[in-house]
């Protein structure tokens, strides 16, 4: 029973991780909490749904959703955040993000109504037995796909030029631009990648829980954000670990404590982390340069 819950937790957690990565990467470079990120995740789920309903193979749909959200994320950055960069306070950027979040969720609600839609049966779910532990094929797929995406991300960040540029920007944006890095492009790319990952998370959640609805992004977004903070906001491995931990803790909390407080678990963790170790599990204490 425990192992099943653990697997459930890791499955849920990897979707949180995929969303959390978007938050953490954007925050690391532009210090913005992208409130609209949850809505990108939601769009990923829906676009995947539309593509599947149009008859496409699930993996093509995944790709399609990721590409769509990549573009959406870049569009949002261009229209709602870039004009505010540098000249306005952090607060204006945050409020702009909230505006985008409201806009996008309402858009989908107007188009689809607020009710839940079910995903058509795309991947039959077979249950496997590893000794006495049961795991479904769906869970395996989610864990594998998430794992691949996360590994891919790490590789990209550590080994490619873009990755290096991203790391430089997260350390010192101004200096990076002075060194000839096209900061605007790096930021766009960061949003693109984060959005693609969130889209994947959205689609997989849609299939796993067999439900999508326009406001699914709000709660998931906030929880994924808590996961990013838990892992250390700005740290990529942190977001991965934070997401997995949060998923496990949430499932365990529901299984062993109480299910009615499920949603509060993420936020309780958030507050605890901020009080005890604000830099999160993987973050480092930074001292301000005055």
């Amino acid at each position, binding site marked *: 029973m425990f192992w099943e819950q653990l697997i459930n937790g890791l499955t849920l957690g990897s979707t949180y991780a995929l969303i959390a990565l978007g938050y953490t990467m954007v925050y690391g470079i532009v210090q913005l909490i992208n409130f609209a990120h949850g809505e990108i995740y939601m769009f990923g789920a829906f676009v995947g749904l539309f593509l599947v309903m149009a008859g496409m193979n699930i993996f093509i749909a995944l790709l399609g959703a990721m590409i769509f959200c990549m573009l959406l994320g870049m569009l949002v950055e261009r229209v709602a955040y870039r004009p505010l960069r540098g000249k306005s306070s952090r607060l204006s950027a945050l409020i702009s993000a909230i505006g985008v979040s409201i806009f996008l969720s309402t*858009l989908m609600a107007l188009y689809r109504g607020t009710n839940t839609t079910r995903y058509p049966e795309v991947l039959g779910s077979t249950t496997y037995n590893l000794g006495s532990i049961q795991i479904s094929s769906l869970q395996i797929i989610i864990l594998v796909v998430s794992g691949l995406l996360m590994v891919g991300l790490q590789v990209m960040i550590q080994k490619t030029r873009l990755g290096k540029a991203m790391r430089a920007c997260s350390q010192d944006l101004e200096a990076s631009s002075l060194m000839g890095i096209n900061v605007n492009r790096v930021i766009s790319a960061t949003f693109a990648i984060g959005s693609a990952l969130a889209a994947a998370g959205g689609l997989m959640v849609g299939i796993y829980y067999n439900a999508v609805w326009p406001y699914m992004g709000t709660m998931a977004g906030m929880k994924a954000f808590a996961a990013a903070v838990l892992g250390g906001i700005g740290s990529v491995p942190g977001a991965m670990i934070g997401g997995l931990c949060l998923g496990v803790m949430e499932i365990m909390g529901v299984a062993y404590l109480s299910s*009615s407080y499920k949603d*509060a678990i993420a936020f309780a963790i958030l507050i605890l982390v901020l009080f005890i170790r604000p830099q999160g599990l993987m973050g480092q204490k930074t001292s301000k340069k005055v």
Partner: protein
Amino acid sequence: MEAFLAQNVDGYYLRIMIFIGINIILALGLNLITGVTGQLSMGHAGFMSLGAYTSAILSVHFGTPFFLAIIAGALLAALFGFLIGIPTLRLDGDYLAMVTIGFAEIIRVFFLNFEPGGKAVGFSGIPQETTFTTVWIIVIVVIILNTKLFNSRVGRSLFAIRENEIAAEACGINTTRMKVLAFTVGSLLGGLGGGLYAHYMYYINPQDFGFMKSIEILNMVVLGGMGSIPGTIIGVIILTLAPEVLRVVAEYRLLVYGALLVILMIFRPNGLLGDVRIYDLKKRWGKKEVKI
């Protein structure tokens, strides 16, 4: 007074005026925290909720008189503000935003599960004691006290913290203590507004105090002009009336709302009255002095 109003003013307009009054109290509370002191609080509805439920439970289950219940609600909200403020305000600004979101959510889930509060079904039977007069007398008192505070030594120090925290410290301002003070007082007003709300609506529900409510109040402060009392009032009026005025296009209201926020931030981030201060008026009067 109440009777006079009931006879001469249409009930609908009365209702709106009361909402505007309550929202002004809520918004001025948030304005003190975010507009004046520059600390972003995104869970103001959580304090509203605490004030609402506390006062409602006291009224209904314990027969507490209206004013005592409201005050108790406000004080409890302030207490929580204080408790949360102390550990959080030592940290970087973004953390307060995160903590307040988390806090408001926990409060919401708590009341969803809180038996005496009616859980998800909500809490009804709250005596309708909030009157136009009550609300507006409180509003006027709050406005006066806020104005005096802004022009005092403590008020100035809060503005200074918003502008440049490190310089404020160099001027001898204990920034953490001042931030906690602002946050506590702001939360108190949030709780006060919540109590008044509960005793007007007769029925409350945890969903009334969700994240969107916090955002609504934040928008009133931001739209009107951060740190400005007249600005906040204007923001409240516009955003309280808008849903009524736009009832026709109710479905699209949120869409427009979201887009409006983005546009506002890009073109006028300090809100409508944010950049207008008493100084400009003084300057104009000053120029009227004739040079001989």
